């Protein structure tokens, strides 16, 4: 619970500074600082457990089916990182209070900062890898907001976008890697993953998993070749750089290395990938840092180099190297945060970050200068400061490894070279900024010391540098021990944090680095000239060009596939469906199955031939819409007859009545649409369409033939046996509809009602131009309601209603039922519309079709619910036989009530559709005068 609170506090507290912002800047900062302060108190309430070696866990099942739990863990490593995040967080908040200008939205800044803090805490305290991944992405997102805080500046926007793209892309790779880990281990919980190292390394997917996880790590921790985003992110306000780009976010990558160390390390893959990438980053960062003229640029490349050092240590894969790596994480966070803050102070007071212009600051701000000099000395690895201790451990570890075989000497030499350059750039930072003559043309002419409290965070951090550097055993040792053992997942190796180990090779390397660094700095002028002669590698430009190429490519591809033509989409879709179906059918060895064909009979052959012929003719004459529609109605009739022929009387009746309403519908539509389609298809298109059509036809025919000539099993026997006893009806099709599969039918009538309502909504307020003349130039007949039809339709109505009642009532036992009866009623009423017009019929049929359809759905649903009242499942039907005098014995079933619902929906929906289209066609207001 405490753990969840630690993570939740910053998210909840993010609104505090927003609320407090109106009441003054100090209150705003205090409100923001309150959150990490509370977090620290909570964290320390767990410290006794953590330092006794316990792992504090809490877990709530979230989506257990997916292996996703809200499970958290606090061990030494998590404790260390949470401490850094919260502790440096407080200092950064204090610092930012004075850094941000009066007009800048401080509330928003602190809100973003707290969001980021919460994401980081979640990341380091997650037990579930999936949960951790979620927080990982949150850190990318919230850091985007922080980097682009000065969103009026284009470099800030660009830098933020690049950081998001690179770390977000890495996050995707990490997601895949984590899913693979989950696949291999069978769980996403760290406690299970960490003990499954053997299984993971032995698995065939291990190299892929490792590469994907490392992509996430390397992008986040700015490792070569993904380091280029970090210098661009320096467009962020300096407190953000101090927090994100020294102490926390860039450490998320190396945190993951430390976290997954027991699970993933210990293979050649690990060694080569991690250590070589770390080595390249270490050297590249150290050398490039020296040549930066921008104060923050120097610090950014130095950060890259130190991250490379940590990565290299993890890559070496020995227990001692891991201890050194964890130690350096602590030390780097402390001195780099203080250096960024000092750089921010200098920038703030001079208005510039260019080291060629900022000179001689010692005179103007001696206090800040002293602090910055101590911190840079720690960065350079000067004895008695914290940086020296971990760097010494690093040097001695490079001497211990022997995995590079006969090239084992390469690593210590490379490490020493990196040390040389790190001393040189630290020296440059001190000498050029604080000495080296007078300032050159500064925007702010009279620099002076910053406000008193702005220096306090720097003082605290520098004090820590000294304390850890001089009294490591009394200060950092327990924290380091518990964090390193959590990372190793086992016993700690023997190591000593003493400052003096006697004269040995690592000390010699340190001395060489110090002296070499001084030498390199003295010789810097020729080196600078050499560097300027190098071809410039513009990371921003390359990134933008790559992004541009990708954007162009996707735009072209989208344009190619999506040109806005539905006709083309349909062609592509049908073509792909055809290919897929053909591909799936290809393994079928034989089209002809073992079942014998039924003999042909003359009538059926004639009917099927007529069906095929009418379909073909309607396609041939499709450009003349009315003719094609008349031919099409012939096909519909033939389909109904085919159903009747092959033992499906219900289907035949349904098809017949649907055919009538469909043709009426299409005739109504034809009133608005042109009577002919222009001949506009190019012959190429016609050939393409013909190929698609013939291909689909052949495929369907082959498929149908293949199925029909193969033996067949059905669950029909169940329905046939239980229809009478279970559903109380002998028309099995109807019993299936209203009883066995009643829930499906309920869904279907709901769809019907919704479609009708949708149509009503679409037609509401629609005014379509009416042609006054037909396509041959003749005016439409004014005699719209012919006498004969008029009188016949009136006589027909009662009879039609009687027939539909008959069909409805007998439906449970003989062909018929709600669907068919509803269609017959609808057709009878539509006939009144046709014969007498919309206004006349509306005046006489005074009920709302919406209500009718709605009532139908309601009746059907209530019938289903009714069975609950008797303790039965939804839609259980009951029936009984009753007898009345005169009528005799008859049957009543609840299914009939359900069928009544179906009937009402069909009548309501059909009439709603057709009468509304009819209404639009009779809308006199929009008649077009020729």
């Amino acid at each position: 619970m405490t753990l969840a609170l630690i993570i939740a506090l910053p998210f909840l507290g993010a609104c505090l500074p927003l609320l407090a912002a109106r009441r003054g800047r100090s209150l705003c900062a205090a409100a923001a600082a309150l959150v990490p302060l509370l977090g620290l108190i909570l964290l320390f309430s767990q410290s006794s457990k953590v330092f006794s070696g316990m792992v504090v866990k809490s877990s709530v099942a979230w989506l257990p089916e997916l292996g996703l739990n809200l499970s958290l863990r606090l061990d030494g490593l998590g404790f260390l990182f949470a401490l850094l995040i919260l502790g440096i967080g407080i200092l950064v908040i204090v610092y930012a209070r004075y850094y941000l200008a009066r007009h800048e939205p401080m509330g928003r800044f602190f809100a973003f900062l707290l969001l980021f803090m919460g994401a980081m805490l979640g990341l380091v305290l997650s037990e579930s890898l999936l949960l951790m991944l979620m927080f990982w992405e949150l850190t990318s997102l919230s850091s985007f907001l922080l980097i682009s805080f000065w969103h009026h500046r284009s470099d800030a926007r660009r830098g933020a976008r690049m950081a998001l793209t690179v770390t977000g892309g890495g996050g995707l790779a990490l997601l895949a890697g984590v899913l693979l880990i989950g696949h291999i281990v069978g769980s996403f919980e760290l406690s299970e993953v960490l003990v499954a190292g053997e299984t993971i390394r032995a698995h065939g997917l291990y190299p892929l998993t490792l590469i994907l996880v490392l992509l996430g790590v390397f992008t986040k921790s700015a490792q070569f070749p993904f380091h280029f985003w970090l210098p661009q992110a320096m467009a962020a306000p300096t407190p953000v750089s101090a927090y994100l780009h020294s102490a926390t976010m860039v450490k998320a990558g190396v945190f993951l290395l430390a976290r997954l160390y027991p699970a993933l390390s210990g293979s050649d893959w690990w060694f080569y990938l991690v250590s070589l990438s770390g080595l390249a980053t270490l050297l590249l960062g150290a050398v490039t840092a020296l040549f930066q003229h921008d104060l923050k640029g120097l610090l950014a490349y130095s950060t890259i180099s130190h991250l490379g050092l940590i990565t290299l240590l993890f890559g070496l894969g020995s227990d001692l190297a891991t201890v050194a790596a964890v130690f350096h994480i602590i030390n780097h966070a402390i001195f780099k945060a203080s250096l960024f803050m000092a750089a921010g102070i200098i920038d703030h007071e001079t208005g510039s970050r260019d080291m060629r212009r900022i000179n001689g600051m010692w005179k103007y701000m001696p206090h800040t200068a002293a602090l910055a000099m101590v911190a840079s000395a720690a960065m350079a690895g000067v004895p008695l400061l914290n940086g020296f201790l971990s760097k010494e451990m690093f040097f001695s570890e490079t001497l211990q490894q022997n995995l590079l075989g006969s090239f084992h000497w390469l690593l210590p030499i490379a490490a020493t070279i990196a040390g040389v350059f790190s001393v040189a750039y630290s020296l440059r930072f001190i000498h050029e900024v604080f000495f080296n003559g007078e300032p050159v043309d500064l925007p702010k002419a009279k620099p002076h010391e910053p406000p008193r409290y702005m220096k306090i965070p720097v003082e605290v951090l520098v004090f820590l540098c000294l304390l850890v550097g001089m009294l490591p055993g009394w200060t950092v040792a327990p924290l380091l021990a518990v964090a390193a053992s959590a990372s190793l997942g086992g016993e700690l190796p023997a190591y000593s944090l003493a400052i003096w180990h006697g004269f040995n090779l690592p000390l010699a390397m340190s001395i060489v680095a110090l002296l070499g660094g001084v030498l390199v700095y003295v010789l810097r002028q020729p080196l600078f000239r050499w560097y300027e002669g190098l071809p410039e590698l513009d990371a921003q430009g390359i990134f933008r060009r790559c992004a541009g190429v990708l954007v162009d490519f996707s735009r072209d591809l989208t344009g190619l596939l999506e040109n806005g033509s539905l006709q083309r989409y349909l062609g592509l879709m049908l073509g792909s469906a055809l290919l897929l179906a053909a591909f799936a059918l290809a393994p079928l060895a034989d089209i002809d199955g073992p079942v014998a064909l039924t003999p042909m009979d003359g009538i059926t052959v004639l009917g099927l031939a007529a069906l095929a012929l009418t379909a073909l003719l309607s396609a041939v004459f499709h450009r003349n819409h009315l003719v094609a529609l008349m031919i099409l109605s012939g096909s519909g009739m033939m389909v109904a007859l085919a159903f009747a022929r092959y033992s499906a009387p219900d289907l035949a009746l349904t098809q017949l009545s649907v055919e009538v309403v469909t043709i009426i519908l299409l005739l109504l539509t034809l009133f608005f649409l042109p009577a002919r389609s222009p001949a506009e298809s190019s012959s190429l298109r016609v050939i393409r369409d013909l190929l698609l059509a013939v291909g689909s036809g052949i495929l369907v025919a082959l498929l149908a033939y293949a199925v029909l000539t193969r033996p067949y099993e059905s669950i029909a026997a169940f329905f046939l046996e239980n229809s009478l006893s279970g559903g109380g009806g002998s028309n099995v099709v109807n019993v299936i509809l209203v009883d066995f599969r009643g829930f499906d039918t309920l869904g279907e009538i709901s769809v019907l009602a919704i479609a009708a309502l949708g149509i009503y909504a679409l037609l509401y307020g629609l005014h379509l131009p009416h042609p006054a003349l037909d396509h041959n130039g003749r005016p439409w007949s004014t005699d719209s309601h012919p006498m004969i039809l008029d009188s016949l339709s009136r006589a027909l109505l009662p009879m039609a209603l009687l027939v539909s009642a008959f069909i409805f009532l007998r439906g449970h036992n003989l062909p018929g039922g709600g669907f068919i009866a509803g269609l017959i009623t609808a057709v009878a009423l539509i006939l009144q519309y046709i014969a007498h017009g919309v206004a006349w019929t509306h005046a006489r049929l005074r009920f709302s079709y919406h209500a009718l359809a709605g009532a139908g759905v309601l009746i059907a649903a209530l019938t289903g619910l009714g069975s609950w009242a008797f303790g039965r499942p939804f839609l259980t039907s009951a029936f009984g036989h009753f007898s009345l005098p005169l009528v005799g014995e008859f049957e009543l079933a609840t299914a009939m009530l359900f069928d009544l619902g179906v009937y009402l929906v069909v009548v309501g929906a059909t009439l709603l559709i057709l009468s509304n289209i009819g209404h639009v066609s009779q809308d006199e207001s929009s008649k077009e005068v020729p």
Partner: protein
Amino acid sequence: MEALFAITLGVLTASGVYLLLRARIFPVVMGLTLISYAVNLFLFAMGRLRTGVAPVLGKSAEYGDPLPQALVLTAIVIGFAMTAFVVVLALRGLGEVHSDHVDGREPDQ
């Protein structure tokens, strides 16, 4: 008989697909109707083509498969609703863009 039935289905599908690929709304709707005939017949035929065996108990000695029939029955009614919906959508489109071309605009001359 099955061969002829399959060929008929093929012809229905081919005509329907050809109409579906036309540029004007009305042929497209007719194509949709033809395809729904083909689909309904196809589904129905999965219960095999047998004569004189309507699944009404007590009317014959054997019964055909009632299940595809029940499925197709609702499919026919829903098919009508969907056709109507497409048609009305097209009418609405006609009201908005004044063209019965499926792309919503007259082809460039």
